[in-house]
């Protein structure tokens, strides 16, 4: 059975199933959300107005039987934070269930009558529009719990109070296997887009769905086997490897040792308290306190990497799942806070209110620089989340993200690109990532240019990492590879085994081909990724973005970053060369 697009109109409260048009049939995940956004969303529309849409799409292999670590769901549309195109993806339960319903995408459009809020229950029988007034004002922990009482073992997609207030830092929550709201399509304010459609929550009931059709079983099984084996063999992704043992926060100490851990609102590259907020420290806390605390937690069924964690309180009861690298950095080093218990509580607040932890932590750090609180004031930082939950004027400023907070507090060190705040890698120390921050259509985003080794992609990588040459070409390759992986439904962390182990690379391409019937090989990855980037880039141009938006913030050219005492040195011409191919006739 061919996949369908489910179009939900919140003005008429009607839902229809449509065939996937031929021109979109080769897309899934990010490729599909971006294709639909480009075609159906006016780039000049107000992101919270009636002409924006929320597009939800699982990846190519998501929901296929036992494709390893393949539970991602892409959420796309025009971003209230950046004003450009946005794709933000999450783990959790939703992707596999949407795919098992035979859906290529769900398009949520229109706006209901003023003051009306709905829970959309999506099942094999269609869509039920349930009055959500009983859920209004509630955080996501309670929303997930209430909806599972009525619809147990379902996927719950929802927004907290931040999304209801349509704050630019509102994310979209997806529940995890324990029905906790820790999986976020956090970046870019897509929770506000969902809120502006009048949707408080979506329940995905996959029972009785047709499942995911496999075009070529033998090829799929062959690819799945190769990919699974490579994940299980690789030192970073295997059981007991770096990610499984210490989570993504395994990066804290290494970036700190490298002088690339942004500290106290990007004023230094090393934090004296880094070891206390690292993945190693989390593992020690989990072992000491026991109870529900654990590393090696999986965020969705079928994950074999399991880089999530459940952080416990002193009694061993779960505070939150999970504390990611970017989260412990944003709430920790960047705010001068070295207390994991407070970081865990702030993370829980973000998960409940519905906030992106990167933007939220950065906003607190900017407010600290502006004098609201001293750096290191963990109790004060935690209280700021009450302000957002209650929607006080201060809370609404913080909830709008870094740029609004900087304006409100008169701060000029504003770590944003395209209005979105930077993640946990200092571009002055680690220049390669800075090119990606500056040029990706998504705004400053570490996942927009994910790992791909230069020789694998056929790029003549520079041996001298101190040189600024070659970084534009490398960044484009990274960005294209990421756009492809974001379309597969696989977790980005498969990047390590597929790049280091030849059969993993083959396995990814074969499993995608096996499911879809598309003839995709490893050689197609970068060209397909570039096609997606071109769509996104052109959308942004129509939305008014120019080359001047592909720039790091001014202070990075003016201020030297300790300990290396380096400034941003890559020229604007080099940055402009990353996407020059879009208009020079070069094929993707």
């Amino acid at each position, binding site marked *: 059975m061919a996949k369908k697009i489910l179009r939900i109109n919140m003005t008429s409260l009607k839902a229809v199933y449509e065939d996937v048009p031929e021109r979109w049939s080769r897309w899934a995940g990010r490729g599909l959300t971006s294709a639909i956004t480009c075609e159906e969303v006016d780039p000049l529309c107000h992101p919270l107005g009636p002409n924006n849409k929320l597009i939800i799409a699982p990846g190519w292999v998501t929901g296929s039987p036992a494709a390893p670590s393949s539970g991602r769901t892409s959420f796309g549309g025009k971003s209230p934070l950046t004003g450009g195109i946005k794709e933000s993806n999450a783990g959790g339960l939703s992707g596999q269930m949407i795919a098992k319903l035979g859906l290529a995408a769900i398009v949520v459009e229109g706006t209901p009558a003023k003051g009306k809020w709905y829970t959309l229950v999506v099942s094999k029988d269609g869509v039920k529009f349930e009055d959500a007034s009983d859920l209004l004002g509630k955080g996501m922990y309670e929303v997930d719990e209430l909806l599972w009482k009525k619809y147990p073992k379902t996927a719950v997609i929802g927004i907290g109070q931040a999304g209801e207030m349509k704050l630019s830092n509102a994310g979209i929550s997806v529940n995890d296997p324990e029905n906790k709201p820790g999986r976020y399509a956090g970046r870019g304010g897509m929770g506000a887009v969902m809120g502006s459609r009048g949707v408080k929550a979506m329940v995905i009931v996959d029972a009785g769905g047709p499942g995911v059709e496999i075009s070529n079983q033998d090829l799929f099984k062959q690819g799945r086997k190769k990919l699974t084996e490579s994940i299980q063999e690789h030192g*970073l992704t295997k059981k007991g490897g*770096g990610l499984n043992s210490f989570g993504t926060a395994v*990066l804290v*100490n290494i970036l700190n040792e490298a002088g690339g851990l942004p500290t106290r609102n990007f004023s230094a590259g090393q934090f004296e308290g880094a*070891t206390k907020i690292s993945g*190693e420290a989390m593992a020690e806390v989990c072992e000491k306190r026991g109870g529900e605390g654990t590393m090696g937690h999986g965020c969705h069924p079928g994950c074999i990497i399991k880089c999530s964690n459940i952080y416990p309180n002193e009694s061993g009861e779960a505070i939150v799942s999970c504390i990611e690298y970017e989260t412990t950095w944003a709430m920790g080093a960047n705010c001068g806070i070295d207390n994991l218990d407070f970081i865990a509580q702030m993370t829980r607040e973000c998960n409940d209110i519905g906030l992106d932890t990167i933007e939220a932590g950065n906003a607190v750090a900017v407010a600290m620089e502006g004098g609201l609180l001293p750096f290191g004031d963990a109790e004060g930082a935690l209280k700021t989340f009450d302000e957002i939950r209650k929607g006080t004027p201060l809370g609404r400023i913080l909830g709008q993200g870094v740029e609004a907070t900087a304006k409100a507090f008169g701060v000029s060190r504003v770590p944003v690109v395209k209005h979105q705040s930077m993640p946990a890698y200092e571009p002055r120390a680690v220049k390669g*990532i800075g090119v990606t921050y500056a040029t990706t259509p998504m705004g400053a985003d570490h996942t927009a240019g994910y790992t791909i080794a230069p020789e694998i992609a056929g790029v003549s*990588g520079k041996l001298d990492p*101190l040189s600024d040459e070659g970084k534009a070409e490398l960044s484009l390759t990274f960005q294209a590879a990421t756009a492809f992986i974001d379309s597969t439904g696989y977790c980005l962390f498969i990047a390590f085994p597929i790049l280091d182990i030849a059969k993993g690379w083959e396995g990814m391409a074969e499993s995608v081909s096996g499911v879809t019937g598309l003839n995709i090989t490893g050689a197609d990855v970068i060209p397909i990724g570039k096609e997606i980037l071109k769509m996104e880039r052109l959308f942004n141009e129509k939305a008014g973005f120019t080359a001047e938006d592909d720039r790091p913030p001014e202070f990075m050219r003016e201020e030297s970053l300790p300990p290396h005492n380096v400034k941003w040195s890559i020229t604007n011409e080099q940055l402009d060369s990353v996407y020059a191919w879009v208009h020079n006739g070069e094929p993707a």
Partner: protein
Amino acid sequence: MINVNVSLYGSLARFGGGRHVAQINVELEANSGKLDLLTHLSIPEKERGYLFINAVLCEVPGIRTGANEPLHNGDHIGIFSVDRLYPYQYRDGLPISEGLKKTLEKHGVMHHSYGK
């Protein structure tokens, strides 16, 4: 004599009395270098991954530079076990030692698993 501060991460923490992370001060003869410190700590070579001296990358997993970068009083050295996550794009542009630079020029482009 010189005193250096050493952070040991992952399974290497046991060489400093820790579980997953340890920080110790080590006294070495004057004019000692990186290799002298590693000998002093008795860390098996196959367990060593990334190594930084004062935020400069000097060693990567699977490749031994053989360089004996000099250490000075008050230096900080961070040593990671081999299972560290450190994606390429997060080290592209990072300061690295002359010894590592020369080794990488012979070995080829940077990769996740240098031994492959």
